[in-house]
């Protein structure tokens, strides 16, 4: 399962990446997660990702980013605010699995 996170500069989403990986490992879910900046997202989303997660603070850019994800046929969702912290692992995992299992 490959998850791509995107936030403004690729820095704060790294924290969410670590939280998700930790939670996934705890629950025995095999996951590959990466974080990129909005500038890199357009190209990176085409590289075989299963789902794209957009950081909540750039929700005003969501429709712009979702278009690129659509072109790459990758489901794209806005991360729930409470999931976007080092302690948000469980929420993130739930959200990601929810999208992938639809």
């Amino acid at each position, binding site marked *: 399962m490959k998850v791509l996170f995107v936030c403004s500069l690729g820095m704060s989403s790294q924290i969410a990446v670590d939280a998700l990986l930790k939670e996934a490992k705890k629950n025995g879910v095999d996951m590959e997660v990466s974080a990129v900046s909005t500038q890199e997202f357009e190209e990176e989303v085409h590289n075989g990702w299963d789902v794209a997660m957009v950081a909540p*603070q750039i929700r005003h850019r969501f429709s712009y980013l979702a278009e690129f994800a659509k072109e790459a046929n990758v489901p794209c969702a806005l991360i729930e605010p*409470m999931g976007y*912290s080092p302690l948000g692992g469980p929420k993130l995992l739930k959200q990601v699995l929810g999208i992938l299992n639809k």
Partner: protein
Amino acid sequence: MFEKISQFMDEKLSTPMAKIAEQRHLRAIRDGIIATLPLIIVSSMFMVIAFLPNQMPADWGLTQFIKTNQFKILLPYRMTMYIMTLYAVFGIGYSLARSYKLDGLSGGVMAEMAFLLTIIPKVGPTASDAVKALAATNPDLQAYVKSVPGGLLIAPGNLGSAGMFVGIIAAIFAVEVYRFTETKNFKISMPPQVPASVARSFEALTPTAIILVVVSAITMWIGVDVHSLMAKVVAPLVSASDTLPSVLVIIFLGMFFWTFGIHGWSIVGTLARPLWLTLLDSNTAAYATNSAIPHIAAEPFYQWFIMIGGAGTTIGLAILFLVKSKSAYGKALGKTAIIPSIFNINEPMIFGAPIVLNPILMIPFIFTPMICAVIAWVATNLGLVNRVVAIAPWTLPGPIGAYLATGGDWRGAALSVILIVLSVFMYLPFFTLYDNKLLKEENGEVPAEKLA
């Protein structure tokens, strides 16, 4: 009740305002300028190095070395940050063209061309016979006459922030012409037998020709001095942005957005960054020539004396969560959020505490940076701390970044530390209230409400 108000504000204020910042042209300007920030940061640091002798003992070998080679050390700065608009224009043209699904490279090149056509090269003077005769009699004059450069000369001034607004307009004009010729099919089309790449290069001729002729006619043949005109229009905006009231408004807006979970600084910065860069560039140029530094409120001022630990001066809150938290959640958050906070990344605090839509923490989040702004402004105005002259990488811990951004002024670092301590005290009562609330919920004394 609070939920109703915040939902109203979110629908009617923060979301529409955020959408405005996503407007195609504003976004292209922002992306183009952000692309030049790495240049500006690195060349800023060179500047700080070049002027370190001001802080170091005069008899050190290193000090002497830097002093004698100062001009050479500054040269990279002269060809990067000093002419920042030259770089930004390409980025703006590229971004805008891409947003229209046009070829970014063509957009960038055409934008650059439009901008450079507003720069009028001068011809270096040639000495007349009379001057030559006079020089023959005086060796000093002779040496001087020989050193005057001839041929075409370009003054770098308008290639820097002074030309930023002209550059933005030139880039937009170029890409819009490009888009017009593309959509209206106003281009030279070749018969299908001609290879595609050749046909494409002919297609690019039309917009290029239009842009070249129009801009040259205005700036070179009719002789309109677009840069002076723009400077007059923009000057009030620039000086208005360097006042305490406007600083406070900018901070308020930025923090307001964040309380709704939107990246406030990115939105405010979209509109303000060209102004900030203009302010900073004047400061940097003055610093490089050892003149008095004119402005206070360039972006580094906000970064190092206001957004310490991230937006909302949350470093104080992060420290409190780490050392004074009684609730289990607070303790866990404190441990994980402190390291990012030291490097000014505070999304863990903003979404983790959370500060978003949290009536208790929103208050200090908005007013703490405003109070810090007033203190820092007064301190800078009184000359207690140097004005900012460089952009330091903003993920540096506060005092270090403050030291670098003020051109190596230790008092900048000291002010940063004072403000950190202040932030702790300003967040304290609200933190205590909130932590107690978390504790009560954890102990089941109060039914847990939605925290966000």
